[in-house]
């Protein structure tokens, strides 16, 4: 069976975060927090300049994280920055930032010119999550650092699928939050619904549907690989221990996204109910990801 799996080819030097790196992480955390504050103030005050500065600071924080990941992986001679929980969490923040700036970019302009540019709220929704994950990186430094000691690429693939699925579930959850905000604004007939810069309900529904589909596919693949890893099939070093907490959360997440996929075909359950379920699913995914980052055992 070993031939079915990719060989373990990557070096894995232990690179526990240093105090200097912690300093950079803290600086990025501060920049993200100030960025969120300015972006929020700019949103409330309708001050685009304030928002641009806020986003600029958040971008600077993300660039610091990215540089840190590259630095650490060059030192550790790693090809993929998911071999310890410190890198994995920072990578998650950077990828969420990528999602954020992509969404900000595509929702900038309305179709009718007289309404002026849209005031996107996506950063206000996503930045708190990024700040929480950045805080988790700080917590990892103070006592939770784990090197996963991957012995082959399948383990990395397993975690990469989980990471991507979590990111996509974050996108679905952001879409869900925006859907609920937009729906509420439209029902309350608020001006903000027009000028607030949220994407249309239809677009948000499509975003949720696509994200849910890919989350389910990636979770299924990740689960299959995880089951094989757990059975010790083709894994260097024998069966991998999987905690009950992780297993339960992973199964629950897979089930929720399965349900979300199925109710696409039940027209009665669309809109708000799907949005709430997407947010619940993301909560489970995030919990699974956090549990994975804190597990003591390798490869889980």
């Amino acid at each position, binding site marked *: 069976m070993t031939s079915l799996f990719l060989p373990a080819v990557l070096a894995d030097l232990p690179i526990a975060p240093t105090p200097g790196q912690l300093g950079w992480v803290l600086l990025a955390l501060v920049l993200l927090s100030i960025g969120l504050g300015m972006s929020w103030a700019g949103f409330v005050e309708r001050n685009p300049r304030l928002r641009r500065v806020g986003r600029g600071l958040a971008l600077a924080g993300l660039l610091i994280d990215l540089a840190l990941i590259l630095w650490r992986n060059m030192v550790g001679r790693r090809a993929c920055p998911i071999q310890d929980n410190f890198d994995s969490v920072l990578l998650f923040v950077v990828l969420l930032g990528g999602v954020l700036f992509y969404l900000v970019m595509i929702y900038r302009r309305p*179709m009718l010119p007289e309404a002026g540019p849209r005031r996107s709220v996506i950063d206000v929704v996503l930045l708190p999550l990024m700040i929480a994950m950045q805080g988790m990186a700080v917590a990892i430094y103070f006592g939770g650092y784990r090197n996963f000691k991957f012995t082959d690429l399948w383990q990395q693939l397993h975690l990469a699928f989980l990471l991507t699925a979590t990111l996509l579930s974050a996108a679905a959850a952001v879409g869900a939050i925006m859907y609920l905000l937009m729906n509420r604004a439209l029902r309350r007939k608020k001006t903000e619904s027009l*000028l607030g810069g949220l994407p249309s309900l239809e677009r948000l529904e499509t975003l949720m549907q696509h994200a849910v589909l890919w989350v389910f596919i990636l979770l299924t693949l990740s689960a299959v690989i995880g089951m094989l890893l757990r059975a010790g099939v083709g894994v260097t070093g024998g069966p991998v221990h999987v905690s009950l907490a992780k297993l339960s959360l992973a199964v629950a997440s897979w089930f929720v996204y399965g349900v979300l996929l199925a109710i696409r075909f039940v027209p009665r359950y669309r809109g*708000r109910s799907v949005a709430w379920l997407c947010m619940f699913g993301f909560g489970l995914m995030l919990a699974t990801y956090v549990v994975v980052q804190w597990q003591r055992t390798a490869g889980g």
Partner: protein
Amino acid sequence: MRILIAGCNHKTAPLAIREQIAFDAEAVDRALKAFVTQYPRSEAMLVSTCNRVEFYVARPAHNPPDPRQLVAFLADSHSIPPATLERVMYQHEDVDAARHLMSVAGSLDSMVLGETQILGQVREAFRLAQQAGTVGPVLTRLCQDALSTAKRIHTETGLSTGKLSVASVAAQFAQQIFSDFRDKTVMIVGAGEMGELTLDRLVELGAKHVLVVNRSRERADALAARYHGEAMELDRLDEALTRADVVVTSTGTPHPIITAAKVAGVMKARRYRPLFLIDIAVPRDVEPEVTSVQNVYAYNIDDLQDVVEANAGSRAGRVVDAQFILEQQVEGFMAWLRARALGPTIAAFCKHLADLRADELEWLMPKLANLPQRERDLIEQFSHRLVSKVMHDPVRVLTEACGPDSAAGDVYAQVLAQLFGLKVDEDE
């Protein structure tokens, strides 16, 4: 003549009251005729749109009605207690009334600042009043000045550019629900200018499928042909609702035609697709309770106000320019009105001098009976020229005193009347 106005608009009266006192064209005609029958020496005009109902009257200075009687007349026309209307109606007189109409026509008082639709509505109100035979020289001049004010404001300030109209606001809200209109069906129920403007904006967004529902099959066909759409009669409304994604209603029916029960009934057949209802009719066509149905969003004309007002704030500079033009025009009109008010004084002055001349000629001519006819004619001509020259300067000064830069006309007129003992009929 005095000018009066009593009215309410989207700022002073909720939609529920505005729809109670709205007039259609026939009702306008009836009301105007009834009014001038009741107050025979008055001029009257009614502006009734979805955002306002205003009653303009010009009447002799010492004649009824007063503004409260206007409110009572409007209340009586719709069998509403006058007290209900008095709470929501504003009343203006003379210069304020003239300023108000010019402000309305120039869309400075509109929900959508700078919109041009109101110009057509004021023109139509004037046409209806002309048709009913209830406008005279004062309201005619006032309307003409109001329309020229509007034109100046639009061309000289650019107030109508870069604005949000009701139609574009409705389209913007539609964009918050749907992202792609190419596969959406847009339905218009009833035919009205604002409804068609809204439909235009939705078609601009890419809507390809248009349904036109109307009581009159002919009008539905004509409108459908314009948009390459499909015409349907009103009795197939349920079927149309099943197919439509965006519905624009602007019928003149007195009761809602799209009820919550009707919408709830078609949702299953629609597979619970979102439905966006834009009700720009007054009285409303869509029952407010429809929003309790999931995935149904409904906006009426008042719901668009916040958006429009938010947009208005950003164009405050143009409003200042528009106000300047407005004041110039108001002053011009008031000068004309004052000059017109001096007509009886000037007429009395001329008549007084002509009478004097006639009296003196009557005394003189029998005494000059021996003179040849040519000399007698010269004497008559001399008296005529003398009276004309005596009249010329006082009349010129009096007229100039009514101009925009001077308001001394009334004082001069009184002095003239006292100096010459003139008997002036101010109501003439």
